[in-house]
């Protein structure tokens, strides 16, 4: 438990001072993806469900938030909440369908469902197709704080990240979280112990989708655009990589994974599509020899299983 406190302290201190050492927009990108990865980890790491369609929640929320703020003139927070709400509803629909199949079928179903959202985003007029939704104004937080100032935007994003992170942390350590773990470890046994496995899976899916939406909606405000990339299957793949690299089923792993992957993409952006080759290569290495991930290996080295 002590190592957990240290990691919490590092996370909060690093989050508070980061914009003074790194480009704030970059750190905000990291935070959005870190929240995305943590939400995803709740499902894959703690429930054992591999969703290959989380980009639908991320990108779907980004589009709705962007449209609400830009066209309807909604303030940033209600806009973000609208995006999150969409992801929640979408998560309920996808989840209810996907839990009807198990294992790798679950992955294929979520991937195919997300593809519907992708084609929808490509075809409906309000998303502006290939151009994406551009020039979303950042606006004022509660009518007071001007979010076009980098630092004010930054601390808002950090606040949103912490809220999401605490929700996930609480979920994992609640009795409900223990049931999820039981499902991950042995689904038939959880079922025979009388737990409503299907309902628990669906609840986990909905929480994960909603928080993914929160991350996507925040991203739309930060970068002031929402695009097809956000709903593309490669984004779903990216978040899997972040989670896997950082450590499946660890609390801080997805954050470390997001920092690593986003930094890597930034550093490698000059080499064009070789980034994809590197990403794929990391995937292969992780699966073959590094399945615990960075934090998982760290936890093993320090004999602290619950980091």
């Amino acid at each position, binding site marked *: 438990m002590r190592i957990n406190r240290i990691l919490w302290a590092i996370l909060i201190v690093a989050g508070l001072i980061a914009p003074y050492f790194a480009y704030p927009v970059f750190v905000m990108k990291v935070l959005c993806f870190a929240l995305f990865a943590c939400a995803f980890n709740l499902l894959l790491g703690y429930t054992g469900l591999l969703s290959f369609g989380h980009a639908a929640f991320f990108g779907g929320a980004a589009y709705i938030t962007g449209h609400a703020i830009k066209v309807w003139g909604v303030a940033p927070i209600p806009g973000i909440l609208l995006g999150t709400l969409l992801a929640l509803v979408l998560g309920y629909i996808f989840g209810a369908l996907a839990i009807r199949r198990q294992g790798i079928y679950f992955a294929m179903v979520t991937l195919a469902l997300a593809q*519907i959202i992708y084609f929808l985003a490509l075809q409906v007029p309000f998303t502006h197709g290939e151009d994406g939704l551009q020039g979303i104004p950042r606006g004022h937080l509660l009518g007071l704080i001007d979010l076009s100032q980098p630092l004010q935007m930054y601390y808002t994003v950090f606040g949103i990240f912490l809220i999401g992170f605490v929700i996930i942390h609480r979920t994992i350590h609640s009795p409900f979280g223990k049931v999820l773990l039981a499902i991950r470890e042995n689904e038939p046994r959880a079922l025979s112990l009388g737990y409503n496995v299907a309902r628990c899976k669906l609840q986990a899916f909905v929480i994960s989708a909603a928080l993914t939406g929160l991350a996507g909606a925040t991203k739309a405000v930060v970068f002031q655009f929402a695009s097809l990339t956000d709903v593309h299957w490669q984004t779903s793949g990216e978040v899997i990589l972040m989670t896997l690299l950082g450590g499946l089923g660890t609390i801080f792993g997805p954050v470390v994974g997001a920092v690593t992957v986003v930094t890597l993409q930034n550093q490698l952006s000059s080499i064009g599509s070789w980034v994809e080759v590197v990403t794929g290569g990391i995937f*292969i290495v992780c699966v073959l020899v590094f399945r615990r991930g960075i934090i998982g290996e760290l936890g093993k080295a320090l004999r602290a299983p619950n980091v």
Partner: protein
Amino acid sequence: MSFNLILAQAMLGLNNGVFYAMLSLGLAVIFGMLNVINFAHGALYMLGAFVALIVYNYLGVWLGIEGLHIGFWVSLVLAPILVGGFGMLIERTMLRRLYDLDHIYGLLLTFGLALVLQGIFTNYFNVSGTPYPGQPESLRGVVNLGFMMFPKYRMFVIVFSVLVCAGTWFLIERTRIGSYLRAGVEKPELAQAFGINVPLMVTLTFGFGTALAALAGVLAAPIYSVSPLMGANVIITVFAVVVIGGMGSIMGAIVSGLALGLIEGLTKVVYPPASNTVIFFLMVLVLLFRPAGLFGKEN
């Protein structure tokens, strides 16, 4: 909307359908033996098409032999052998290590592999596609089907693919090798005790599945332009086909591939904007009313 138009779209749909059938067949064969969903299947299909394109267009230039164009018929044999060999190498060096783990690791590994392959080709080739110029002389022109003039080559693809699918079904369900294979799936330890080399069967099966993907790729090259993204675009649809058909049977994969291609083609007549999502919506319906898939068994 004339009846001829509907028939014409049905033919084009069937044309896509044979690709869905071949790809989902390969996935089903691999899944049956290895319990792995091969995400790289689309990338290997793309690789097959690129083998055909490269040996026709570029190999002569690279080797400095002027006028060297290795043609379609040679590619039709060469690409499956090369890609199948590559597949077996992947199985031996990587996939083999994952059999004792959760099946999702196989999916993630092959996803990484797909990214690597797609990334490499994106670097060297145009993403919007390169036309394959090696379509054989004997298959140029059209045949008159009565209701439409249909390209001879596409007709060939339909007939040839259906034969390949039928041949695969026969091989697995009706021959001695197939019975070894099915025994290996059913009870690996027992099959091994009877002297069947199960690990070898697994490698060969994976090689065969990937060879099927490459074969589909070569067949696709003259129809669609050869692009690094061609596999990624088709594989997700094929996954939906697999969910609809259920992985249980070889015949299920073939029939649902053909049928869904047909339905997709007909949707282009009825309501064009839905044509690229209709298969996914059908998947939703199947999940609601028959979650195990049309041909799948409840487990």
